[in-house]
C-alpha cells in the first residue's frame, strides 16, 4: 500500500516536467503569435465611445471587412486588434453608424438618429435601454416639455405619446386635466394614471405640483407588463417623472422667462334685445316682459355679457431660475419658479411658486446618497362663470345697475345692505322658469371674497449601495404633504326679493393630504457566457396615505332683532380671534342665540399599502428577450382575507433583424416583435368602508314601555370583496430602417378587466338591503391599437427635419354587468340634465361601449296635426298624442303605447373617437428650431346640450343671433330646428348629437439659439415665439368639439364648458 502511494507520488513529481514544458511552449506560442501579428502590422486599438457627453456601453466595434468585433464596456471603452490603416465601424441601435479610421486612443461620438431609441427608459425601479424595451412605454424628454410652455406639464403630454388622451377638466387657470391611457378599466373608480416623481407617488396636486422646468423626462407606462411592477395603483397606467439632476463638471445657471397672452374666441354672436324679445314671445306664451327701460331691464339696449365678463387678453407669466452643477462626488440642482396665470374672465387667477433642491452625493465607491425637497405655494381665485349661462343671459338685463341701490324696494332699509354687493341686476327668468340665472358680473366679483391657498412639500431621499459589481441595493423614502385652505365670505346684499341676505357669513375649510413611501430594491445585473444578460430585481414597499379635512362657518346675528352684528370682509380677514370681544362681535352672540357656528373635522381618507415585487429581465445577445414581473400587493381597503393578491406579467421580445436570415435586408436596421401578457389589480373603485357591514345604534323599541335601543344594519358589507383584475394582452412590432432614419412602432392591445366592482344601483326591495351591495361582478374590455412613425431628413449643411405621426384607437365596452340588463348613468350635472332634460344621457349595458349615448331617435319634424294623428303604433294608438306641429317625430321601438323612456330609447352614439391622430414636425437649421404640432380626434359623437338654450331659447335664455329665422314656425315650416313654443323637444334625442371630429393646430413654436456668444459669462441664449390652439377645424356647432369630462362614463357631453383659449407666447432662456 505504502509503495503504491510512493509510486503515485513519484509519478506526479515526474509528470511535472512535461507540464512545465507545456507551459513554456504556450508562452512561446503566444509570443510567436504576437510577433506574427506585429509582423502583419496588427495593433491594439483602444478608445472610448460617447453619446451626448456620456459613455455609451454595448456599442459594436467591427473591423471593416473582417469578422473581428468587440463591444464597448460600461465606461464606453473598447480594445480591438486591427490592422494599420484599417477602418472601424461603430454601430449601435438608435445611433447613426460611423466608420472611422483606426487610431490610437480613439474618441468616437455617436449621434442619436432614431427618436429616443438610444435613450434609457424608466421602467419602474430601474431603467432599460429603449432598444431593449419590450413593454409599452412612451417617453417625453424635458426638452420637449419646454418647447411648449405650459405651467401644467400634463398639457404637454397631449399629442406626444400615442394612446394617451389629455382632456382639460373644467378649465380655468390651475385646472387639472384628466389623462386617459388606453381606455377605461373600472366602472366606479377613477381611470387616472399613477404619477410617480423620483420614486414617490404623488397623491395630491397631480401635475400642478411640479414645475415643468424641473422635469428631466416623463415615461408613460401603458401596458400591464410595464406598469405591473407598480402593482395595483398602476391599473390605469403610470407616469414616471424623473427630475433634473446636476452633472459633474457642468455648472449652469439657467434663467427662463415666458409670457403668454390668451384670448378666448367669442363663439357666437348672440341675439340683441329686439330678437330676444321676439323669440321669447314666440316660444313662451306666458312671456310677459313688455318694452321697458327700468334699471334692471332695458329693452332699448343690448347687454354684451361676453364683453362684460371676458378679458380681451389674459396674461400668463412663467419665470424660472435654476442652477445645476457638481463634481464627481456631488451633484446638485436647485430651482425656483413663479407662475401667474390669469383667467379669461376679468376676475380669477392662479399663482404658484415652486422650489426644488436635488442633491446626489457619492460617499465612496460603493455608497451613494441623494434626495430632493420641493416646497410650493399656490394661491387662486376660482371664477364661477358658466360659459353657456353667460352667453344665454338675456340682453335686456344690465350687468351693473346704478350704485345707489335704487333697485332695493322702498320697503327695505338700504342701510342694511352692502352697496358693493347689491348693485347687480338679476337676469330675467320668467315665471315658471325656476331660479333666475345668476348675474355673472356679480358672481365673478364676489369670487374675489373666496380665496384659496395651498402649501405643499414633496420630498424624497435614497441611499444606494453596490457591495459587489452588478449588485445594487437601493432604499428610497419619501413623503408629500399638501395643505390647502378655502375661505369664503358672503356679504349682505340685496338683488331681488328671492335673492338677498341680511346676514353675513364667513367660512373656511381646510384639507390636509399626506403620504409616505418606503421602498427597498435589490438589483443584480450579470452576464453568463457573455451573451446571456440578466437583470434580477427584488423589492419591497410600504406606503400610507391620509387626508383630513374640516370646515367651519360663522353667521352673523339676525339683523332684524336690533342686535346688528354686521361684519365686513376686512374684519373677517384680519380678525383677532383670541380677543373674546372680537369673537363675540364676529358671531357667537350668547344674548340672541341667532349667530351660529358650524363645522367639524373629518378623517377623510386613510389607506396603507404593502407590496413585494420582483422582476427578471433576460436577453440573449440582444436578440431574444424575456421579462417577467410579479407583485404581491396589499391594500388596507379590502377585507383582511382579500387584502393581498398577486399580479404577474410576462413579456417576450424577438429582434428579428438580428437573425442571419435577415442579413440580406440591409435596409432594415432593426425589427423587433413583442408579445405581452399581464395582470394588474385595481383598488380604486371602493372606499375603505365599502366592504364593512355598518350598523346604526339608533333603532328604538319599547319593551313593556321601557325604552330600548337596538342596532340595525345600514350597510350589509361584502367580506368577499376583492381586487379588480385587469388582464392585458398585447402584440407589437417596432423597428427602424434606412439607416435608422425611419422609425415605426405598431401595437395592438386587448385587455379585459374582470371582477370589476359595481354597486348594484337597483336591487329588488325583497333583498331588504338598506344599501345596495357592492360586488365584483362586472367586466370591461378595452381593445385598440397604436401606431407611430417618424422619419429623419437631414442634409450635410445642418438642416434636420423630423416629421412624426401617431395614430391610436381604443374601444371600451362593458363585457358584463353581472346580470344587470342595463343601467342609466345618473346625471353628472343635475342643473343641466336631470332637471332640464329629465332623463339620463348615457346607459351602461352588456356589450355596449362605455359612455354610450342612449335616447330617442329623431325621424323628422311633424309638419301638421294630421301627420301626428297618423303616427300610430300596431294597435292603432297614437305614438305621440301630445305632440304639436313643429315637434320632433321620434322613432318607436317598443311594440305599443306612447313614446316612453323604457321602450323607445336606442343607442345614439359612441363618445370615444374612432381615431386619434397626432402629427408633428420638428425642424432645425443652424440655430433655428421650429416645431409644429397638430392633433385630432375623428368619429366621436358629442351631445350638444347647448342647442336647447342657444337655439330654442329655453328658460328665457338668449339665442344665437338669427335663431328666430331658423326655428319651426307656422310661417317657417321648412326650418331645421323644432318649434320652441311647445316645450316638447327637450327630451334627450339624436337632434342633440353631433359629429365631434376635429383637427387642431395645437402648437407652433419658432426658436433661435444664438451661436456661441462673445459676451463674457453667457453660455447659451435661446429666444422663441409661439402660438397655441391657433385654429380648430371642425363641423361641430358648439363651443369646443374636444369635450372635457371628469367621468369616463360620461364623456362627450357638451354643457358649454370652459373653452380652450388661443394663446401667443414669447420667451427667453439664458444660460450663464
Amino acid at each position, binding site marked *: 500500500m505504502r509503495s503504491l502511494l510512493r509510486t503515485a507520488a513519484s509519478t506526479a513529481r515526474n509528470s511535472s516536467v512535461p507540464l512545465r514544458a507545456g507551459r513554456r511552449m504556450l508562452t512561446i506560442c503566444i509570443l510567436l503569435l504576437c510577433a506574427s501579428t506585429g509582423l502583419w502590422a496588427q495593433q491594439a486599438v483602444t478608445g472610448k465611445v460617447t453619446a451626448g457627453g456620456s459613455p455609451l456601453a454595448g456599442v459594436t466595434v467591427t473591423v471593416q471587412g473582417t469578422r473581428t468585433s468587440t463591444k464597448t464596456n460600461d465606461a464606453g471603452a473598447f480594445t480591438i486588434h486591427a490592422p494599420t490603416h484599417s477602418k472601424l465601424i461603430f454601430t449601435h441601435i438608435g445611433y447613426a453608424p460611423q466608420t472611422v479610421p483606426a487610431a490610437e486612443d480613439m474618441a468616437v461620438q455617436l449621434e442619436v438618429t432614431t427618436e429616443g431609441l438610444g435613450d434609457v427608459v424608466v421602467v419602474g425601479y430601474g431603467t432599460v435601454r429603449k432598444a431593449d424595451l419590450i413593454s409599452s412605454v412612451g417617453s417625453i424628454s424635458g426638452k420637449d416639455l419646454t418647447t411648449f410652455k405650459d405651467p401644467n406639464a400634463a398639457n404637454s403630454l397631449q399629442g406626444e405619446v400615442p394612446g394617451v388622451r389629455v382632456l382639460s377638466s373644467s378649465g380655468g387657470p390651475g385646472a387639472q386635466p384628466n389623462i386617459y391611457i388606453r381606455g377605461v378599466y373600472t366602472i366606479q373608480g377613477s381611470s387616472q394614471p399613477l404619477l410617480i416623481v423620483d420614486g414617490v407617488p404623488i397623491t395630491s396636486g397631480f401635475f400642478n405640483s411640479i414645475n415643468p422646468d424641473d422635469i428631466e423626462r416623463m415615461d408613460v407606462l401603458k401596458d400591464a407588463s410595464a406598469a405591473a411592477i407598480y402593482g395595483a395603483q398602476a391599473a390605469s397606467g403610470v407616469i414616471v417623472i424623473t427630475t433634473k439632476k446636476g452633472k459633474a463638471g457642468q455648472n449652469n445657471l439657467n434663467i427662463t422667462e415666458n409670457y403668454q397672452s390668451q384670448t378666448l374666441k367669442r363663439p357666437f354672436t348672440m341675439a340683441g334685445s329686439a330678437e330676444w324679445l321676439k323669440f321669447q314671445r314666440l316660444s313662451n306664451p306666458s312671456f310677459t316682459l313688455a318694452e321697458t327701460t327700468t334699471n334692471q331691464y332695458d329693452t332699448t339696449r343690448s347687454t354684451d355679457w361676453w364683453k362684460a365678463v371676458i378679458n380681451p387678453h389674459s396674461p400668463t407669466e412663467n419665470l424660472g431660475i435654476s442652477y445645476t452643477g457638481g463634481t464627481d462626488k456631488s451633484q446638485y440642482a436647485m430651482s425656483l419658479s413663479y407662475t401667474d396665470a390669469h383667467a379669461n374672465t376679468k376676475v380669477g387667477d392662479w399663482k404658484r411658486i415652486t422650489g426644488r433642491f436635488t442633491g446626489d452625493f457619492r460617499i*465612496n465607491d*460603493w*455608497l451613494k446618497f441623494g434626495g430632493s425637497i420641493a416646497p410650493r405655494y399656490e394661491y387662486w381665485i376660482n371664477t364661477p362663470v358658466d360659459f353657456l349661462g353667460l352667453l344665454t343671459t338675456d340682453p335686456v338685463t344690465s350687468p351693473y345697475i346704478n350704485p345707489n341701490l335704487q333697485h332695493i324696494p322702498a320697503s327695505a332699509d338700504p342701510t342694511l345692505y352692502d352697496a358693493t354687493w347689491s348693485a347687480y341686476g338679476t337676469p330675467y327668468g320668467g315665471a315658471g322658469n325656476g331660479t333666475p340665472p345668476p348675474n355673472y358680473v356679480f358672481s365673478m366679483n364676489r369670487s374675489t371674497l373666496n380665496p384659496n391657498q395651498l402649501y405643499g412639500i414633496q420630498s424624497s431621499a435614497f*441611499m444606494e*449601495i453596490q*457591495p459587489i459589481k452588478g449588485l445594487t*441595493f437601493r*432604499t428610497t423614502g419619501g413623503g408629500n404633504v399638501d395643505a390647502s385652505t378655502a375661505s369664503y365670505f358672503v356679504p349682505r346684499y340685496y338683488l331681488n326679493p328671492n335673492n338677498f341676505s341680511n346676514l353675513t357669513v364667513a367660512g373656511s375649510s381646510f384639507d390636509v393630504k399626506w403620504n409616505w413611501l*418606503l421602498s*427597498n430594491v435589490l438589483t443584480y445585473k450579470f452576464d453568463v457566457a457573455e451573451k446571456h444578460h440578466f437583470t434580477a430585481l427584488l423589492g*419591497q*414597499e*410600504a406606503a400610507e396615505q391620509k387626508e383630513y379635512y374640516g370646515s367651519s362657518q360663522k353667521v352673523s346675528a339676525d339683523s332684524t332683532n336690533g342686535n346688528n352684528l354686521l361684519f365686513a370682509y376686512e374684519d373677517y380677514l384680519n380678525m383677532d380671534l383670541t380677543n373674546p370681544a372680537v369673537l363675540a362681535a364676529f358671531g357667537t352672540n350668547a344674548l340672541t342665540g341667532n349667530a351660529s357656528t358650524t363645522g367639524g373635522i*373629518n*378623517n377623510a381618507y386613510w389607506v*396603507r399599502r*404593502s*407590496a*413585494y415585487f420582483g422582476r427578471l429581465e433576460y436577453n440573449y445577445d440582444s436578440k431574444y428577450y424575456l421579462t417577467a414581473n410579479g407583485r404581491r400587493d*396589499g*391594500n*388596507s381597503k379590502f377585507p383582511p382575507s382579500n*387584502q*393581498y393578491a398577486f399580479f404577474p406579467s410576462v413579456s417576450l421580445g424577438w429582434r428579428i433583424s438580428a437573425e442571419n436570415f435577415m442579413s440580406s435586408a440591409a435596409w432594415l436596421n432593426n425589427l423587433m416583435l413583442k408579445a405581452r401578457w399581464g395582470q394588474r389589480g385595481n383598488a380604486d373603485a371602493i372606499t*375603505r368602508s365599502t366592504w*364593512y*357591514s*355598518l*350598523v346604526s*345604534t339608533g*333603532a*328604538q*323599541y*319599547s*319593551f*313593556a*314601555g*321601557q*325604552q*330600548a*335601543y*337596538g*342596532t*340595525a*344594519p*345600514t350597510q*350589509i*358589507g361584502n367580506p368577499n370583496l376583492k381586487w379588480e383584475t385587469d388582464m392585458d394582452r398585447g402584440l407589437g412590432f417596432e423597428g427602424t430602417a434606412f439607416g435608422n432614419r425611419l422609425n415605426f412602432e405598431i401595437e395592438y392591445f386587448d385587455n379585459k378587466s374582470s371582477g370589476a366592482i359595481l354597486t348594484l344601483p*337597483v*336591487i*329588488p*326591495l*325583497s*333583498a*331588504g*338591503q338598506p344599501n345596495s*351591495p357592492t*360586488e365584483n361582478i362586472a367586466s370591461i374590455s378595452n381593445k385598440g391599437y397604436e401606431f407611430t412613425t417618424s422619419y429623419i431628413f437631414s442634409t450635410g449643411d445642418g438642416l434636420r427635419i423630423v416629421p412624426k405621426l401617431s395614430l391610436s384607437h381604443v374601444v371600451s365596452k362593458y363585457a358584463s354587468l353581472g*346580470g*344587470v340588463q342595463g343601467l342609466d348613468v345618473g346625471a353628472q350635472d343635475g342643473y343641466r340634465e336631470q332637471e332640464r332634460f329629465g332623463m339620463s344621457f348615457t346607459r351602461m349595458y352588456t356589450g355596449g361601449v362605455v359612455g354610450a349615448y342612449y335616447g330617442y331617435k329623431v325621424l323628422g319634424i311633424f309638419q301638421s296635426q294630421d301627420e301626428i294623428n297618423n303616427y300610430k303604433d300596431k294597435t292603432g294608438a297614437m305614438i305621440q298624442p301630445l305632440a304639436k306641429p313643429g315637434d320632433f317625430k321620434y322613432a318607436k321601438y317598443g311594440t305599443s303605447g306612447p313614446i316612453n323612456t323604457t321602450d323607445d330609447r336606442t343607442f345614439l352614439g359612441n363618445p370615444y373617437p374612432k381615431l386619434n391622430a397626432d402629427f408633428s414636425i420638428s425642424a432645425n437649421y443652424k440655430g433655428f428650431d421650429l416645431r409644429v404640432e397638430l392633433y385630432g380626434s375623428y368619429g366621436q359623437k358629442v351631445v350638444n346640450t347647448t342647442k336647447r338654450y342657444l337655439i330654442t331659447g329655453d328658460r328665457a335664455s338668449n339665442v344665437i343671433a338669427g335663431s328666430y329665422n331658423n326655428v319651426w314656425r307656422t310661417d317657417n315650416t321648412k326650418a331645421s330646428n323644432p318649434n320652441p313654443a311647445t316645450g316638447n323637444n327637450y327630451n334627450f334625442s339624436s337632434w342633440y348629437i353631433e359629429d365631434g371630429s376635429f383637427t387642431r393646430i395645437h402648437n407652433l413654436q419658432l426658436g433661435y439659439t444664438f451661436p456661441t456668444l462673445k459676451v463674457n459669462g453667457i453660455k447659451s441664449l435661446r429666444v422663441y415665439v409661439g402660438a397655441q390652439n391657433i385654429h380648430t377645424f371642425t363641423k361641430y356647432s358648439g363651443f369646443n368639439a374636444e369635450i372635457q369630462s371628469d367621468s369616463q362614463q360620461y364623456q362627450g357631453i357638451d354643457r358649454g364648458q370652459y373653452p380652450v383659449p388661443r394663446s401667443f407666447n414669447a420667451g427667453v432662456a439664458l444660460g450663464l
Partner: protein
Amino acid sequence: MKNIKSILIYFLSGAIVFTSCKKSFTNIPYYGLETVQNTGTFNSASGCISYVTGCYSAINLNDWWQTMWTRVVLETATDNGWLGNLGGFSNAASYRAVGSLEAINSTAGDVVGLFQFYYQGINQCNFGILNISAAPIDASLRTRLLGELHFLRGFFYMDLAKNYGGVSLYNEKTTTADIPLKRSSLAETWAFIKADFEYAEANLPQRKDYTTTADMARASKGAAMAYLAYANLWSGNYDSTVMAASALLGLNEYHLEPNYGDIFKTAYYNGQESIFEIGANNLIGNVNPVIAGSGKDGGWGWHVPSSNLEDAFLNEGDSIRRVNTIIKDGQPVAGDPAVTSWNGNPSGNTSGRNWRKYYIPLAERNPANQGYAGRWQPKAYIFMRLANVMLIYAEAAARTGDATTASTLLNEVRARVNLAPKTGLSGDALINAIILEKRLELAGEYADVRWDDLHRVKVNGVTLMSSMFGPNGTYVQWLQTNTDPYDGRTNLAEVTQNKGKLYIPGTNDLFPIPLTEIEAGNGKITQNPGY
C-alpha cells in the same frame, strides 16, 4: 470598511423584513363609522341583544315617525273604518289608494311600504341569524336570541304571504349573488313561515320564564304557538291550528282579562291576556292616539271607525265592547269621567267617531287634561291576545267539525262582555258567528284582524272582501243607502268615490308586487295575476 458595508446591508435587509412581513400593517381600523366590528355588535351578549332589539323595531319600520303606516291604513279600508280626515292631513292622499280602496296598484305607497319595510326586517333577521349563530355568547342566550329572530322573520313573512301571496324567500344563507331571488309558491312560503314559528316555539322560553318585565315583552313560546296556529289557519291546516292553539291554552299561562276595557288601558303592559305586543312610551310608541284623535283634541281625525261597525255592535246588543271601541261625538267617553260630551269635530272628520281603544283619558295624559302632545303615546300595540287565539281555535275547530269546542270557545269570549251564549250553531253559521265575533272583539286593533279575515275567508271561492267591494259589492251598495248623520258626510272624496267601488274583486285580493321590485327583478320576479 468591509464591516461597515455588511452592517449596512444587514441593517437594510432587516428593515425590509421588519416593514413588510407584518401583514397587520394593512389592517387599519375604521374610525368614524359604526361598523359591525367597531361596535362589537356580534362579539358580546349585550351587542347581540341590542341587535335583536333592532330587529323588533323593524315591526314598525318606516322612515317617518317609525310607524308602519300601512297597518293603520288597512283597517280603514274595511267596513270597520274610514280613512278619515283627508283635508286635514296633506299626505293622506297617498294613503287613499289602499286606505279608501281607490287604486290598489303596484306603485301605491302602502303596497310598496309594507313590502319594502318588512323585507328590510327580514334582511335584519337573516343577518342576525347568520352572525349570532357564531357569536361567542352563552349558549342558552344564543338559543333564545335565535328563537326571537326566527319568530320575527316568520312574523314579517306572514304579513307578506297574507297580502302578496308566495314571495321570494330570503334566508340567512342567501347571498347577494342570489339577488334577484325568484318568488316561491304560496305553499312553500307558508311552509317556511311555519318552520320559523316551529323553531321559535322549540327554542323560546315561556313568557313567565323571562326574568324582567321588559324581557317578558319579547317573543315567547306562547307567541310562537299563537302565530303557528294562525299561520296554519291561513294555510288551511285546521288540524294543526287546533293542535297549536290547544297547546297554547294548555300552557295555562294566559287568561282573559275579566274587564274588557282594561286591555286598552294606558301604560298597561304584559297583561294576562296579551300574548305579543309592542310596548310604547313617550319616546317611541303608539301613534294612533294622535293620528286617530279628534282634531279638537290635538289629534288628526284620521283612521276612524265607521257607522257600520257601530251598527254591528248595536245589532248584537254588544254595549261593553261598543263603548270600549267607539267614541261618538256628543257622547261621554267610557272610562274617562272628565269627558261627558266628547267633541268629535264632525265638521272636520269623516264619521264623528273615534277609536276608544287608542284614546287616552285626560287625567292620564302628559301633560294632564290637555290635547295630545308629542307624536308617541304610552299605549301598547297588542298584536296577539288570547281572545284572538280562542277565536282562531274556534274557527279551526268549527272547520274540522268540532262544533262543541268551537261554540265553547266562542261563548267564553262572549261571556266576558256579558253576551248570551250562541248555541246550536254548526257549519257555516257557526263560522260566520265566529268571524263576526272576531270583528267585534278585535275591531280597530293594530293587528288588522278584520282586513285579514275579509281576505282569508271565502264563500263559494270568493273572498268576503271581493263580495263586499267592487262595483256591485254588498258594502258598496249599503253605502248608497247609509243614512248615518256623520258617516262620510264631510268627506267628499270618499263619498263621491263610494268607497270600494273601484275595488277589483278577485284581482285585488292580493296586493300587486311593487313595480320597482318587478323592474329590479330582471324578469325573474313575476307579478300577481291581473296587475
